[in-house]
């Protein structure tokens, strides 16, 4: 069964709208009216962060996404998570979806415990649902003595651990992972990899963005390689990694 169907998707941003003020907008509006510049909204250019992206993900699959900085990987994950709505094409998803990113989504003044409940609420979980999972979230994140401290006192590794622990315990049908394994120590990485194996064994789906080719090869069987907002290679993870490394070398 196809759980993610991405069909000719494009997303555009306006380039450098800067910190807009009312004054600027009014001036631009008057100028544009005079010159009648067509196609430009408020005089700024548009930039397609992603264009004509088509791929499918099947249930229980782990798919890797690699590419240079600015290739559109994180934008793609945000589109998949529903944060952005595509300007072109369409995305169809089946089941619940959760995006795991570094450092975002936690409120610094609230404790790890309070943030856990808040994150759960975002995914439609009641307090009771989280109560049931709370022990295993704390257990996995190994934050027992710090769980009631405010998040602002956490290190980036601790935040990543908590985020990962929440994401795997709420068990979304599709888990989108953006570079989170990069900050943990070896021990934690191995633990995460074992969890990801379990997720796959339970027929749930993983979309995995990383710069660590070894991890991508270990976790995913199929990988998409992105460049400048489009897919430039699709296939076996080993081949995709080789393709990506070749393209990096040719740039140097």
């Amino acid at each position, binding site marked *: 069964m196809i759980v993610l169907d991405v069909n000719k998707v494009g997303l555009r*941003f*306006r380039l450098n*709208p800067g*910190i*807009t*003020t*009312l*004054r600027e*907008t009014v001036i631009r509006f008057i100028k544009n009216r005079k010159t009648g510049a067509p196609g430009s909204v408020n005089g700024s250019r548009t930039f397609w962060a992603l264009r004509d992206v088509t791929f499918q993900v099947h249930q229980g699959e782990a798919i890797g996404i690699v590419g240079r900085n600015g290739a559109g990987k994180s934008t793609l994950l*945000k589109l998949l*998570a*529903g*944060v*952005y*709505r595509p300007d072109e094409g369409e995305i169809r998803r089946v089941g619940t979806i*959760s*995006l795991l*990113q570094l450092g*975002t*989504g*936690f*409120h610094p*003044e*609230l404790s790890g415990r*309070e943030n856990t*409940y*808040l994150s*759960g*609420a*975002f*995914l*439609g*979980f*009641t*307090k009771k649902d989280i109560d049931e999972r709370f022990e295993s979230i704390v257990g996995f994140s190994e934050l027992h003595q710090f769980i009631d401290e405010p998040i602002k006192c956490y290190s980036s590794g601790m935040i990543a651990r908590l985020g990962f622990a929440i994401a795997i315990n709420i068990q979304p049908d599709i888990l989108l992972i953006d570079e989170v394994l990069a900050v943990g120590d070896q021990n934690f990485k191995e633990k995460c990899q074992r969890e990801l194996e379990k997720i796959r064994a339970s027929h749930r789906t993983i979309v995995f963005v990383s710069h660590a080719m070894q991890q991508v090869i270990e976790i995913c069987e199929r990988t998409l390689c992105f460049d400048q907002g489009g897919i430039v290679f699709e296939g076996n993870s080993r081949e995709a990694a080789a393709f990506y490394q070749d393209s990096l070398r040719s740039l140097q």
Partner: protein
Amino acid sequence: MLRSCAQLINYKELIKALIVRDLKTRYKRSFLGYLWALLDPLLMMGVFILVFGTILQSTVDYYPIFLLSGLVPWSFFSGTIQQSVDSITRNRGLIEKVYCPREVFPLTVVLSNGVNMAFSLVVLFALTSFYRIRFAMLFTLLVVSLAILSRLLGRQRQRWQLPATGAAVVGLCLYQPDFGPLLLLLGFAVFCLSSLALGLALVFACLNVFFADVTYIVQVLLRLGFFLCPIFWALESGRLSDTHLHYYLLANPLAVILQMFRSVALGYPWPGVGYLLLTGTVSIVSAGLGYFIFKRSEDIMVKRI
């Protein structure tokens, strides 16, 4: 648009969690904590009594209560608008991470300020009973706001709460025949005030993503509003009621809403049916239009935060 509005029901857990977060973070680092919700209106009243009651010698009867019954709804209104202006930009960390209907952020601000207003109303009615003007309201409001609070803090809903509240209301209505209509008027006033605030909150929150100027413009407008609304002065005062100015000032829906609060707290004459209907309509249109504008610009807004 109606469908996306109905969708909000699915997010009630989130809205509840966000309200709790708002309330918790607001007083998190202060020594007195939640007590500030009660102290704030009282201290504010103290300042105004000093300035307008003592120094400027206002002639309005029961001036402290008169002031507080204007300050409580106004604090709700201006607090809601001020906090919702940056409610989208402040929550960008969350908005960029997960999908949720983004109107939950301004909506949460309205609701968490509503909880605060419930506290302030308790103070207000405690004072009115002290002045022996009205006392029945106090008990009901105490029960209601305690019920809201215990639900928010995640306790199990107590079986006795709903019937007890109902019995209290019915009992009071029988004991004091004018209590029922007053409770209705208070409910209507709170409804008008919140939907008016919600509409403006949605529009300002959305505009602020595109123009940082909005924060400052809103501050100026609120300052102006504070003086244009009958908060520390009375519409009925001698010089005003002789002129046509009276009618222009009542065209302001907030003035009518404040008048409703005073009818409840001080037994002022009710605003005319025409005014009530007009204010109700304006409030509903404000919420609807605000929601429409917000939803229309949501996709562009998310890309710009």
